[in-house]
């Protein structure tokens, strides 16, 4: 649904840098702040109040109070929650240019994508889940005996949401929207690299009229603010998107604290399988986007491209072409496809993995180093002759580095595709209906694309097999993870069917 993109606001005014609790803006209890950096210029944009345990305690207390029986939020008609969410969607669209500009400034992603994809993605989450608010039904159940039995789908309570930096605005809403639609209250910690659009969202939440305490936002770092949320005895559920390493810590933290529900969306090393009978041009183009979209900073990146040997050389040639043509530069330039990577840590890690690829004998077809001399820009990089045992074939790079591997048979490639601790996504390109279903049903991945990649919608459940995560976001399954089932059994004088 692309319309002409309005010009970006190149120096968007930073309006909100404080902690948001009870619909109010407050400074950190410690007085500390932290900087957020522009990855294009490597300069500090501004300083943000740094939340820590004391601030998380205040936020959780506010959320708990907003969730008390008898509170405005608990007494509100579910349909009214939906109306508030739709209003939020309207306000986001009203401020689409500003939010996209702010996201671009803070994250480095191209403004055109932020405008056309990131902001609408967030709005879609809001509108889709608003529709569920008054449709979370329980059941009546014909149990044996003289009983009337029914279930209620009750909101789980205080949700600790921890969002990543690759799609800051969109993923914050991916968590907030279903939580609110289900009647929960939220304490969100945005990623420390990208707090600005989450804080602006807070101002819209207040403008819509959500009661105080329903949404609270505490910017800060993982080991401090994030850990405080995960260890808190009054947080009922954590929803985290980020690295597998941190996901494991959060799982353990739940066990050490109050056994809070945990859903995790973690990393991936997703296999993208291209058969000889695929539409080659189309497959090469889709595989290119599957990897390079968002500067490779996508949990579902198709980062192991398995190409059948008959078309391998041709495919590699086309991939190099696409990689070379893909423009890198100023995210506010509408013609640019790639901005910088998010920060110096990622930048160094990606360059390190590229080195390992060279050293371990993969063939560097193009790119392979820094782009320019300022900003965390990396050249679009393609490796061919990659084998399964190389680091670049096993570890999540999260950068613009495409690995192209050769395969012979379908049984062989399925085994190799599954030979990983990850299981987030996969794809198969083929015209053959039998191959398509065989691969789709054999690969251990939460989302499988057939003759496509990256297609996603809030209505379709999304999540990982194995160490790519736990639980699903999206669809009815996704929102019901924010509900807790209560079964009520009433004695009746005499049962009648």
């Amino acid at each position, binding site marked *: 649904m692309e319309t002409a993109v309005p010009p970006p606001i190149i120096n968007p005014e930073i309006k909100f840098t404080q902690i948001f609790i009870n619909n109010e803006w407050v400074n950190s209890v410690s007085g500390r702040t932290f900087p957020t950096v522009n990855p294009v210029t490597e300069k500090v944009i501004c300083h943000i109040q740094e939340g820590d345990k004391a601030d998380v305690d205040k936020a959780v207390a506010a959320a708990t109070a907003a969730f008390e029986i008898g509170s405005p939020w608990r007494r509100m008609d*579910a*349909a009214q929650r*939906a*109306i508030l969410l*739709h209003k939020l969607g309207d306000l986001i669209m009203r401020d689409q240019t500003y939010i996209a500009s702010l996201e671009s400034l803070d994250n480095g992603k191209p403004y055109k994508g932020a405008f056309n994809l990131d902001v609408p993605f967030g709005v*879609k989450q809001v*509108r*889709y889940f*608003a*529709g*569920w*608010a*008054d*449709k979370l*039904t329980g059941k009546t159940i014909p149990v044996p005996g003289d009983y*009337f039995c029914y279930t209620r789908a009750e909101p789980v309570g205080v949700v600790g949401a921890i969002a990543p930096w690759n799609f800051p605005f969109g993923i914050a809403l991916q968590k907030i929207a279903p939580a609110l639609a289900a009647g929960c209250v939220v304490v969100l910690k945005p990623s420390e690299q990208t707090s600005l659009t989450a804080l602006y969202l807070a101002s819209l939440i207040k403008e819509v009229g959500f009661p105080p305490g329903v949404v609270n936002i505490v910017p800060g770092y993982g080991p401090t603010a994030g850990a405080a949320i995960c260890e808190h005895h009054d947080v009922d559920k954590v929803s985290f998107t980020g690295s597998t390493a941190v996901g494991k810590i959060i799982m353990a933290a739940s066990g050490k604290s109050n056994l809070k529900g945990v859903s995790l969306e973690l990393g991936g090393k997703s296999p993208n399988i291209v058969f000889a009978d695929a539409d080659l041009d189309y497959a090469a183009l889709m595989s290119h986007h599957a990897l390079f979209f968002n500067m490779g900073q996508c949990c579902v990146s198709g980062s192991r491209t398995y190409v059948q040997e008959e078309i391998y050389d041709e495919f590699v040639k086309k991939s190099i072409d696409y990689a070379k043509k893909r423009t890198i530069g100023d995210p506010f330039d509408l013609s640019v496809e790639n901005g910088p990577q998010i920060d110096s840590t990622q930048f160094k890690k990606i360059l390190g993995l590229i080195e390992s690829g060279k050293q371990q004998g993969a063939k560097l077809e193009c790119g392979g180093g820094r782009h320019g001399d300022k900003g965390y820009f990396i050249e679009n990089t393609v490796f061919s002759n990659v084998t399964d045992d190389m680091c670049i074939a096993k570890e999540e790079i999260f950068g613009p580095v495409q690995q192209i591997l050769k395969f012979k048979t379908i049984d062989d490639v399925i085994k190799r595709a599954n030979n990983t601790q990850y299981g987030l996504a996969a794809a198969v390109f083929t015209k053959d*209906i*039998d191959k398509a*279903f*065989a691969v789709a*049903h*054999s690969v251990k991945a939460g989302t499988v694309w057939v003759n496509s990649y990256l297609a996603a*919608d809030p*209505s379709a459940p999304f999540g990982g097999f194995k160490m790519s995560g736990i639980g699903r976001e999206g*669809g*009815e399954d996704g929102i019901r993870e924010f509900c807790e089932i209560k079964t009520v059994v*009433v004695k*009746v*004088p*005499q049962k*009648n069917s």
Partner: protein
Amino acid sequence: MSDAVPTAIRNPVVKYTQIFYNNEFHNSLSGKTFPTIDPATEEKITDVQESDKADVDEAVKAAREAFKPSSPWRQMDASARGYLMCKLADLMERDISYLASLETTDSGKTFLDNVADVRASANLFRYYAGWADKINGKTIPVDGNFFTYTRQEPIGVCAQIIPWNYPIMMLAWKFGPALCTGNVVVLKPAEQTPLTALYIAALTKEAGFPAGVVNVLPGFGPTAGAALADHMQVDKIAFTGSVEVGRLIQQASGKSNLKSVTLELGGKSPNIVLADADLENAVNWAHSGIFFNMGQNCCAGSRVFVQEAVYDEFLELSKKKADAAVVGDPWEEKSENGPQVDQSQFDRIMGYIESGKKEGATLVCGGTRVGKKGFFIRPTIFGNVQDNMKIAREEIFGPVMQVLKFKDVEEVVERANNTFYGLAGAVFTKDIDKALTISSSLQAGSVWINCYDVVLSQTPFGGFKMSGHGRELGEDSLKEYTQVKCVTVKIPVKIS
């Protein structure tokens, strides 16, 4: 969404009087028109183009075209359908003053009730909009080397015939589930109240529904309605109205193309008040249960069964409340009731009142016309009603409350169920056991406990027995507008 009362517009200008299909307004092919009357003044409001078979054929053609697989409507994202419905809701609220005023003029319902109807209808569109992209099929682990999935596909061209008691709401009840599931509709509003349906048709065009998706054909039952029921290119018909016509429609389906049929018909709903009830609460709900909307409610609580210990007190309190009710100018805020919808209903109701007196019921209050112009009737209460009286067996559809005495629970449940109707029922009691027992025993699609007439976007509504079949509102309404297609793909080897 403000709670302030919108301004009433007396004598609103009628903008649309023509037949609507393909996003255009047309004159009738026959040249015929019919008048629509203001029941408060008995004066003609305007003439409306009268649809007959030829116009129905054109509209159905347009609808079929809009439903073709390559059409804009069939290609549209489900979420986009939902978005159009939200836009329609916004437009209805934008024009709430005009819409409510037009309805007051055409139907005689009070202006305040019409304002509430517009709001509820807009919210109902929003409710259904939320379902649009959630119409899920399943994948099913069948035996053998097969991959099986289902799709919930729209049925196609849906004929919808609605009554005159809640013209705007009944349109929303029909459009909502049909459009969100991807169908196309041909709606015939009641001949007594065509105006708001035509205005809303124009709003659907403004909202952006593609041509042919929404079609509105004003006209009469035996001509336009029958043409729809008999049509070989109509895939489904949904009707709200009398049992008599419901039976004709069911037969027409058999005689034509076996189109699927859902019916919302009449009722003679039992409202049971036990001795341990909060009596004032029961009296208040029983009052609105029968007198709301001038008694023109399919689920009206028209048989009030009161346990003998509280019978006299119930009658006394009910009489007080009924006598205090203001029946008059529907534009006035103090009017609880306006007129009945037309002369024929008025005569019918007065006829039933006469029969009540003749058969020996006690006229407790009311029973008379109000004023000399307009079809106004006083809230009427009959006591000492016996089960075999006409007023206890037949649907009056007017402001006439029948109060019957009973002794114990088993007896009253049997008497309550002793009817071929089964639309609604209620029980007033503080006792949890009696509440659950009685509500389980009543043969009725909606049962209320310590309240009456609570019908909301989310609650499935419909009849047992001859009050109809199928459900409107709530999740259960969606299956009336979808058909399941099961697809089974042979695969080389099964993988669990």
